[in-house]
């Protein structure tokens, strides 16, 4: 308001050379005023003004063109981005479905193979094979046993005091200890959150996640074990169970052991068998025996100077 009054009173006021003020006050190109003055002094010829008008029209056409192109470009870019994202999402979903289908098919085929094998083998051999499969974790097993339940401490208990970095959590070593104690208590099959343990299973930590056989498991952790009736008593008398009870008491982790009837433990995925092969280098394996097949205890390669290569 006051500025306007000032303007009226003193229209010829000279402003300080403040860039922004100048910008706001005088956005019009001074060239227009200069051109108008020039025109008054020296009016342009008729032809000259007409050609200038034509150029203006052309420039306006170009401007419209520019606007349309920019608009289309922006509109095209946007769906491009969201299309890429939704395309990726559909691809991920598709792959997941394919994986599910393929694993279901693999299960089917595995069962089929088992049936065929049972039909081909004699009764005692098939039974022995099934026992072996159950023992090694490659077959689904059912039976009575115990379930050990471990869970992280509730979050708010220690977060308030700020004692450490977050609430106490179950560590991978706890799961390892429980699994080992169960094995030594006579367990015949163990699974952690539905992941069957085999002779080659690993229980590791990666960051804050616990990986069982390289698949993440999240708390609460249920370690199910099938074994003889004395297993629960023997497990509870073990050093690991005592340790876990004490840890639970001190940190607020939950640790429970209960007997469970009719547990079903799933089969472990087919193990990736790795075979040792003799080195390809003939000088390194003087016997030159490359036929050492999987699992063959070929003594011909062991004395080779290279030490068997891989």
């Amino acid at each position, binding site marked *: 308001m006051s500025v306007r009054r000032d303007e009226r009173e003193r229209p010829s006021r000279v402003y300080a050379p403040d860039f922004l003020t100048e910008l706001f006050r005088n956005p*019009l190109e001074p*060239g227009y005023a200069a051109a108008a003055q020039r025109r008054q002094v020296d009016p342009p010829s008729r032809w000259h003004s007409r050609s200038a008008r034509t150029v203006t*029209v052309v420039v306006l056409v170009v401007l*419209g063109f520019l*606007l*349309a192109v920019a608009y289309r470009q922006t509109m095209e870019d946007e769906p491009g981005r969201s299309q890429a994202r939704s395309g990726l999402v559909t691809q991920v979903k598709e792959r997941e479905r394919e994986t599910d289908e393929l694993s279901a098919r693999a299960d089917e085929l595995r069962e089929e193979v088992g049936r065929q094998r049972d039909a081909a083998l004699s009764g005692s051999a098939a039974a022995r094979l099934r026992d072996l499969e159950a023992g090694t974790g490659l077959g689904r097993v059912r039976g009575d046993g115990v379930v050990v339940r471990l869970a992280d401490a509730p979050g708010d208990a220690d977060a308030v005091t700020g004692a450490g970095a977050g609430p106490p959590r179950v560590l991978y070593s706890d799961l390892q200890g429980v699994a080992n104690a169960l094995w030594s208590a006579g367990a015949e099959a163990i699974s952690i959150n539905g992941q069957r343990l085999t002779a080659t299973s690993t229980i590791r930590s990666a960051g804050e996640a616990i990986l069982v056989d390289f698949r993440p498991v999240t708390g609460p952790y249920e370690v199910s074990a099938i074994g003889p009736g004395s297993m629960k008593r023997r497990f509870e008398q073990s050093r690991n169970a005592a340790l876990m009870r004490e840890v639970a008491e001190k940190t607020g982790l939950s640790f429970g052991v209960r007997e469970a009837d009719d547990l079903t433990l799933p089969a472990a995925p087919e193990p990736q068998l790795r075979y040792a092969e003799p080195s390809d280098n003939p000088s390194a394996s003087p016997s030159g025996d490359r036929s050492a097949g999987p699992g063959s205890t070929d003594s011909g390669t062991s004395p080779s100077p290279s030490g068997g290569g891989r």
Partner: protein
Amino acid sequence: MIAVLALLAGVVLGVWLDPSVPAALQPYLPIAVVAALDAVFGGVRAKLDRIFDDKQFVVSFISNVLVAALIVYLGDQLGVGGQLSTGVVVVLGVRIFGNVAAIRRHLFRA
């Protein structure tokens, strides 16, 4: 009137031809549009002030677009393209606002 028709003709041409902008020129398109808008609003204001001049309009349009593109290009080469683009948009935006305010005063006397 002719000017509006020419503008519409340009839009129709752009939609009809549907040209694809080369990837190298794409960063300059939005800045060029803002610079062109500045020239247009300056021209409209001059028209309403009755001091419109064709030559002035054409020169200011072309130089605005070129200078804006040049600044963005320089910024890209120097690694401050985003900031310089923002600067160009702020300056041109302020000018557009001032011109539109003048146009508004002309049209609505307010």
